[in-house]
């Protein structure tokens, strides 16, 4: 019951924050609200017995990634210039987006409600997880079953870093001057 109550509260917070992300004019506020959303999601993860995910949600996502966002916003000094101020060139964009979003919600809601889940039940019940420990379990899986994707992920990050460096290198400006 407590779980339910917590879910409702956190869920509402999440939704409100998410809406704020979308509708805040200032990008920096959007970023803050996004962080807030992520944190509330982390709470929900805990409720779902995914403590490790909850932890990295806060640390990596809300912490690292979003800091990067905020940093870029600051760097480009975007908080002052309101890019949304001008007239929207696409007249039908907003209403159609809202309508489509609404339909999407309804569809997903209906689908979720109508689906009878009969997927194969795994071995990791909350009880067994809490016995071994969530983090340990994740670690174990990462090094056994998911070792290959894990390695790939490293390459992915490597590629991303290279890419980011290539694109953001200062040299560009010099090139332009020359």
């Amino acid at each position, binding site marked *: 019951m407590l779980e339910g109550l917590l879910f409702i509260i956190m869920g509402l917070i999440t939704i409100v924050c998410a809406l704020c992300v979308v509708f805040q004019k200032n990008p920096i506020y959007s970023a803050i609200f996004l962080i807030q959303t992520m944190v509330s999601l982390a709470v929900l993860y805990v409720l779902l017995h995914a403590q490790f995910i909850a932890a990295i949600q806060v640390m990596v996502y809300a912490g690292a990634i979003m800091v990067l966002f905020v940093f870029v916003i600051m760097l480009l000094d975007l908080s002052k210039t309101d890019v949304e101020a001008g007239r929207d060139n*696409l007249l039908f*964009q907003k209403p159609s987006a809202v309508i*489509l979003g609404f339909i999407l919600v309804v*569809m997903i809601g*209906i689908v979720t409600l109508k689906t009878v889940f009969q997927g194969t039940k795994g071995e990791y019940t909350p009880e067994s997880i809490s016995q071994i420990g969530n983090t340990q379990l994740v670690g174990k899986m990462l090094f056994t079953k998911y070792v290959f994707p894990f390695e790939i992920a490293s390459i992915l990050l490597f590629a991303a870093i290279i890419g980011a460096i290539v694109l953001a290198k200062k040299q560009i400006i010099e090139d332009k001057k020359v």
Partner: protein
Amino acid sequence: MPYFFGCSYLDLIGYVLLFPLAGTIINGLLGKKLSKFVVGIIGCTAIGISFILSFFVFIDLLKLDPEHRVFEIDYFTWIGSGSFEAIAGLQVDPLSVVMILVVTGVGFLIHVYSIGYMHDDDGFYRYFTYLNLFTFSMLLLVLANNFLLMFIGWEGVGLCSYLLIGFWFEKKSASTAGMKAFIVNRVGDFGFILAIMLIFVTFKTIDFTEVFHAAPEHLQMGSFVAIMITLLLFVGAVGKSAQIPLYTWLPDAMEGPTPVSALIHAATMVTAGVYMVVRCNVLYTLAPFSLTVVAVIGGVTALFAATIGLAQNDIKRVLAYSTVSQIGYMFLACGVGAYITGIFHLVTHAFFKALLFLGSGSVIHGLGGEQDMRKMGGLKKYMPTTYTTFLIGTLAIAGIPPFAGFFSKDEVLLDAFSKGSLFLWALGAFAALLTAFYMFRLLFMTFYGKSNMSKHVEEHVHESPMSILIPLLVLALLSILGGFIGFPTASAINSFLAPVIGGGHHGMIDGGDLHHVSNSLMFSMMGISTGIAVAGILLAYLMYVKQPDLPAKLVGKFKLIYTIIYNKYYVDEIYDATIVKPTVKTSFILWKIVDVKIIDGFVNAIARIVELKGEVLKLFQTGYVRNYALSILLGGVIIIVCSLVLL
């Protein structure tokens, strides 16, 4: 000299064809380099030899038993496809012999005449090439042993006619007239081709002998197929022989050189239709209805053309209409079943009409190309020989005994009366009156009265050279004597041709008792027709010699009728307005509207629509990222909804 190196002249029938062909090829290929004299010699020799050969063939044929006077020779299979077979083969029988004699004989004379007549022309060798080619085609036409081969000749003469009418191609009227001749002939050929096909489908063969042999068994008397075959054939004949309604090309054909008019458009080619009808007499006899049609068309044409002849002022045109009219007589004869009479008139007509044309050619030659009779007159003293021969021809055509035309025309009228009806006779008789009138009108206007020539012309008027006069004289002789081959009661031509009629040995048709009319009727008819002719002549004399101002008065009185007749009943104009112009107009509509606007427009419209769609779809590519995302989301939502709800 009946045998030539051991073989009968009949076997040499192919050479009759070969020489003109050789003449054509030699003159055609080398003529440009040869002198005019040589060209003329080659042309004439080729025909001359042909004539001689034909004569010997005739002799050889005479030697045979009358019932078996048929000789066939096959050279090679021309077209053979499945059951259809057309053989290149020749057939000699009395009918074709008569025809080749006329063709080569008259043809030779005209060739000789042409040497003088065409001497100053640049296209001399071309002329002789065509003329030889014509002779070849005409001989092929009459000698062919099947319908399709005959059709080659049929079209071949048409081609030559086209070429010769348009001989002076720089004259627009000449080239147009040639084209008109060919196209109108094609209309006739349309019928001919269909007839051949129908014959093939009916008899499974197109060979003359086989078809005529099988016809009486195959076809019911008066059956639909028989009528269709004969009518379709007759369409061909109408085209070639210039009968109503396809006669209009012949007067225009006078744009060609005069000897051509004499040979092709008077003596030989135009009578091919008559020949064809006579050739197919077996079929015609099986289709009485068709015969009636033939007779009526012939009779009406005879009269109709004669009326037009009354008011024409061009000397050659008058002759042309008279040709149309005379051929009408021939068809009239055929139509009443008197095929031999038709051929008889064909032969005599060949003589006197060739004579008349050549005579007129002599006049034109002498006058330096003038053809309008109103600008002639009084030529008697300038061109006596021409005048004499012309007079003979005129008398012959008018039907004054004992000239050739009298016998044949009289017989036509007699047959029309005895075997046909009073109506047909009346048509013929009235036409005869008119013929006598307009022919003498021509004679009087040209040779009598006071000269209407311009000073310049008058100074240069001269009698024609010998090469022109000799053929005239020969033809005049023939016009006088030619009639006697068909002398009533002792008709040589009649007995000679009799086997051909009714399929020869199938004497079920009344070929033999052609002349079972009472002598009294015969003589009274003779009297009447002579009377008619004399009446016509007198009338002409009255109007054009005695009281030259009478015609003008009459014209004033009957202005409407005169205008109509003068303008040839406006037939050309009517054809132009009802057939030619609408066709061209329709074609323009088809091209400019159906083709360009509708079909092509449709095609281009599709292309345009495709492109437009591209242009429109392109606009969805707005360049805005958000918009692209919208289309992704939209597509996604639609897919999800459809996959869940619709499918």
